């Protein structure tokens, strides 16, 4: 644990007998002003919020989040805007967990030292970089730890026990289990398989295990929330931006959908 805030989130949820809701949106999507409002609306319902850093080449993302990145960059989103949106969420929600999520080249280009300083100052608790596996953590691990930022690592169905141990040894905060071998927003895999693999990872680590990739309905969220420590919803929330028109309509739809996910998770017991 590099930072107590994320650990506290999971403790609170555990005390309430439920999984945490981890919501994702891309910063700057569809434009800076709307994005800030949507992020705040999502933060109302979420225990942890993942703020996506737009990138020109989101290699591990499906069409929905790719398009979100493109919209944000077209709208002129810069890394400074990601930090400012982070700051707004932090000011409104002192206890929420905030994770900045994206690709290595953005923090690498700024320099991990400067990036970590600014991320921490804006109120972020951790960093989830899709393309820095534990093996390449030498470029950032010590710097993140020195700034009190959690290094969230991913696991997938292809992760061997050796890789699970690697992630548990190098990661902090929580493990993000990518429940299918695919890109973000694809269909969920078989629920039994996900449950078994999640339990296996939980048995190998003290860290909370959040499960994501492909959760689109409250029923799926409830099913995952029954065994995982956290339920990650990303593409489904992002898709509210294109499925609705007008700032208010998007905001309402996002709130309704986040609320439904939250209620479903609260209804399911861990």
């Amino acid at each position, binding site marked *: 644990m590099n930072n107590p805030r994320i650990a506290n989130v999971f403790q609170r949820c555990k005390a309430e007998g439920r999984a945490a809701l981890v919501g994702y949106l891309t910063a700057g999507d569809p434009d800076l002003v709307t994005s800030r409002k949507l992020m705040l609306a999502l933060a109302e319902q979420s225990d942890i919020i993942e703020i996506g850093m737009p990138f*020109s080449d989101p290699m*591990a993302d499906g069409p929905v989040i790719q398009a979100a990145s493109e919209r944000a960059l077209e709208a002129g989103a*810069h890394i400074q805007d990601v930090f400012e949106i982070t700051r707004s969420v932090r000011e409104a929600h002192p206890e929420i967990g905030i994770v900045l999520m994206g690709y290595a080249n953005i923090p690498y280009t700024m320099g991990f030292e400067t990036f970590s300083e600014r991320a921490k100052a804006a109120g972020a608790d951790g960093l989830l970089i899709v*393309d820095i*596996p534990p*093996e390449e953590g030498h470029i950032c691990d010590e710097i993140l730890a020195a700034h009190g930022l959690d290094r969230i690592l991913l696991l*997938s*169905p292809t992760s061997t026990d050796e*890789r699970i141990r690697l992630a548990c040894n190098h990661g902090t905060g929580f493990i993000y289990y*990518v429940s299918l071998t695919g890109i973000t927003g694809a269909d969920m895999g078989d629920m039994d398989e996900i449950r078994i693999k999640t339990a296996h990872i939980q048995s190998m680590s003290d860290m909370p295990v959040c499960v994501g990739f492909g959760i689109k309905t409250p029923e799926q969220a409830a099913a995952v929330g029954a065994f995982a420590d956290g339920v990650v919803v990303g593409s489904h929330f992002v898709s509210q931006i294109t499925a609705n028109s007008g700032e208010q309509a998007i905001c309402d739809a996002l709130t309704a959908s986040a609320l439904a996910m939250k209620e479903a998770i609260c209804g399911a017991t861990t």
Partner: protein
Amino acid sequence: MSQPLHNLDFSSMYDLEIKHPPDAGGHFGKFGGRFAAETLMQPLKEIEDAFFEAWADPAFHEERLDLLKNYVGRQTPLYHAKHLSAEVGGAQIYLKREDLNHTGAHKVNNTIGQALLARRMGKKKVIAETGAGQHGVATATVAAMFNMECNIYMGREDIRRQAPNVFRMKLLGANVVPVDSGTSTLKDAVNEALRVWVATCEDTYYIFGTAAGPHPFPLMVRQFHTVIGQEARAQCLDQTGRLPDVAVACVGGGSNAIGLLHPFYDDHEVRLVAVEAGGRGLDGNEHAASLAAGKPGIIHGSLSYLLEDEEGQISATHSISAGLDYPGVGPELAAMLENGRLQLDSATDDQALAAFKTLTRCEGIIPALESSHAVSAGMRIAAAMNPDQTVLINLSGRGDKDMGTVFELLGDELGGDQV
């Protein structure tokens, strides 16, 4: 294998020792590595293990080198371009004729090796990205021969400018999937192929086309292409009695460059020159010279030089040749630049086109536009040298695929309306 398939003396012709290897994590100095999503880490490890196991197996090389000889047509000639040398009026220019390979470029050296590896690993399907279409054609070709299902990812812009290669891939039975994201060129095709591979790696092998990407691709692609430089080195010694003074290759991702130049790594008297695509000039943004104008960054699984904006968003690139139109470059070339072994040069679109015309008229050899960049810089370097010196240029591919582009640019000059 009990019966030799070939009549080559491999041990004397090709050096199978892995020289200047990366560290265990695939790093060449500070470059390279495996900056990949978790889902790909295990599949990449499996390819790495399979590659080292295959490379240590004489039967693998027997089959690979037999195919390189009898299917691809290796060894390729080293041609003393006397007329071009006379036209330039400096050093003697020698062309390594990779354009004479089956499928028309060096790319097939790598696809043969990786397809054999895919088969060894029990994969029934292959995917690949392509820019100019040369790697796509080389992949579709071996997929046809090995009876593997084949999907090629190609930017829509590249599909437009490389129509003949698209048709060739389709004839060979490959499915060409247009990519519309980003700038619709090579980098986006790589993104899309990676996305597809993440979801299908259980039964699908990704034949990466250049000496870039996550470990082990930079090492593996280099090893499959060092036949170029190893042959050229022996041929130079045979024809001129000495090593070349300069070896020149064009660089997009860097596969033909590392293939030609790496076997000369320890020959310190040989200058190694990488020629990047200068596009409309290095002073602007419309080029693809990652080594000359980029800075270290992380894309497509490795740390190397990148063309990007000040925040790390990857830049759109420009080159007359689709095969060089890529914002990154192989990590080992980046390391060789930093350790001083590699020198940089570049050729603009106009210079490449001029070299294309000169070589065609002087020698009756129509080069690929990619290779024309190497020819342009090689001619310029040779012009400043003495007639008893030699410049080795990798003619990495032939120009058939570029007829459409060149026709658009030069058609009028040649009375194109009457063609």
